[in-house]
């Protein structure tokens, strides 16, 4: 709002496709009030607003970079729809969590918690990777950027270089993970 000002919708989308992370902040600021009003009216809190807002913006970020993405409404409407879905999902999770919590009290098991802990450890290994590999894999697997854009952002020669470098980085990460965990832990 302050730094970028009002941007045309197509400009925002184009800059997201180019991997401009400033657009995340722009989307967040532009739609914060709208999402906040909705969540607070629907038995939410300010902390929940921030979480939902972040998830919504990141979801838009991911979806825009998908190859079959087609925006058929205003971007604000699209973002608001995502936020609503996320909030309703969160509300369902809360109600479900209550039931699960009650049954856990009765049964006493927590296998799911162990799996989440393992995932967090792998995430830590990803974060410990070298900068180029981490960014390359992130751009490809999360942001969904094309190899051409990744090549531009990481200053590679061309898209083929990105493809070969991606395999090398993935193999490296896989080796690190397998060195820490057994295959059975990942299954």
């Amino acid at each position, binding site marked *: *709002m*302050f730094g970028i000002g009002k941007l045309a919708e197509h400009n925002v989308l184009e800059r997201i496709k180019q991997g401009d*992370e*400033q657009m*995340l*902040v722009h989307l*967040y*600021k532009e739609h*914060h*009030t709208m999402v*906040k009003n909705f969540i607070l009216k629907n038995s939410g809190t300010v902390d929940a607003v921030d979480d939902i807002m*972040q998830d919504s*913006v*990141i979801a838009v*970020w991911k979806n825009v970079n998908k190859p079959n993405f087609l925006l058929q409404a205003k971007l604000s409407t699209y973002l608001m729809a995502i936020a609503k879905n996320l909030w309703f999902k969160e509300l369902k999770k809360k109600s479900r969590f209550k039931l699960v919590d009650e049954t856990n009290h009765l049964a006493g098991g927590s296998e799911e918690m162990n799996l989440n802990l393992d*995932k*967090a450890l*792998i*995430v830590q*290994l*990803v*974060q410990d990777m070298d900068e180029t590999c*981490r960014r390359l*894999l*992130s751009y490809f*697997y*999360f*942001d969904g950027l094309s190899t051409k854009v990744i090549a531009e952002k990481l200053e590679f020669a061309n898209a083929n270089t990105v493809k070969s470098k991606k*395999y090398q980085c*993935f*193999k490296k*990460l*896989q*080796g690190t*993970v*397998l060195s820490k965990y057994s*295959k059975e832990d*990942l*299954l």
Partner: protein
Amino acid sequence: MMDENTYLLINDYLDGSLKGRALDKFKTELKTDSVLQEAVAEQEAIIAAIQSAREQELKSYLNQNLSKKTKIFSFSPKLKIGLATAAAIALLVVVFTNISPRFADKDVTTSEDIKESPSEDFNENKVPADSSSTKEGNSLANKETTEIDTQTLAVVTPQPQVTEDVTILENEEKFDSDLEDKIVEILDTAVEKDLVEANTTQGAKPKALEKKEEEIVVSDKLLTSRFYTVSSISPDFSETISTETVSEIEVATTSKRRDRKKKVKAASESLENSSDKVTASRNVNVEYWQSVVNYKGYKYDGAKVQLYGMEQSKPISFKELDDRLYLSLNGKQYFLEKNKKYNRMVEVTNSTLLKVLND
């Protein structure tokens, strides 16, 4: 460890880009091949971890950029209107505070200009920076005093403008009061004159009125009025002219110029030789006047001659020739022109006319 082709194939399967026969073939293999199942599970777990890591990275990026300093202020429409109003008021206040001192300065300077005494300007010969009307007035006053100084070559302490104005006003008042007094006096005398005339008819004239009458001698004074006999002169040269002209016409017929000269000559001779007929026809009223401004001359309207600055003792006589009045005074002849103006005495210089008038 899997090879690159397997890695790419699993990638396509996981992101949903593997389709058709390739997808069916892969699914068939996945059901039967336990190694492939392990590879898919590994890759899926690692990709999920990469995505989680990226998600956390982006969230931390958002948190960094949405820190407390740059926290979003969502302006509601009411707040926007309020802020706009406050900004407008602040702008007006700033503009007013910037402009108002200029007006105040102007007022101060003019009041100072008025307060400045002219004497300071005269002594210090200060040239005022502003060209206000007050200062122009002062500079004009300054010029006037310097002129006086140069003429008298004396150190004159200039009088303040206010006292000058007061004296002028006093003089004006005095003048007005004098004028009023005079008008009253004139009116009084006019009334008193009527009373005097009335009293003179009765033979009594109060002394106080006489005194006032002497005071208002402002016009010309009639000294005396006399009647003189006007001698009309009508020279009879008709015969001589006619006989001589006839003889001249008979003698000289050749040259017209010569005829003219001869005619003139004959006329003058006849005038000289003619015997004038003098007949006393009428009397003329002659008034001797004393002019206030010592004017010397006459006024002749056809019936009355008013003589200004003439001694009454000196003998005068009047003659009339061709309806023209001539005054004889001290052996000189003066032509009196008939009009309603004051005229100066014009002496007759024509010898022929003088001869006629003197005879």
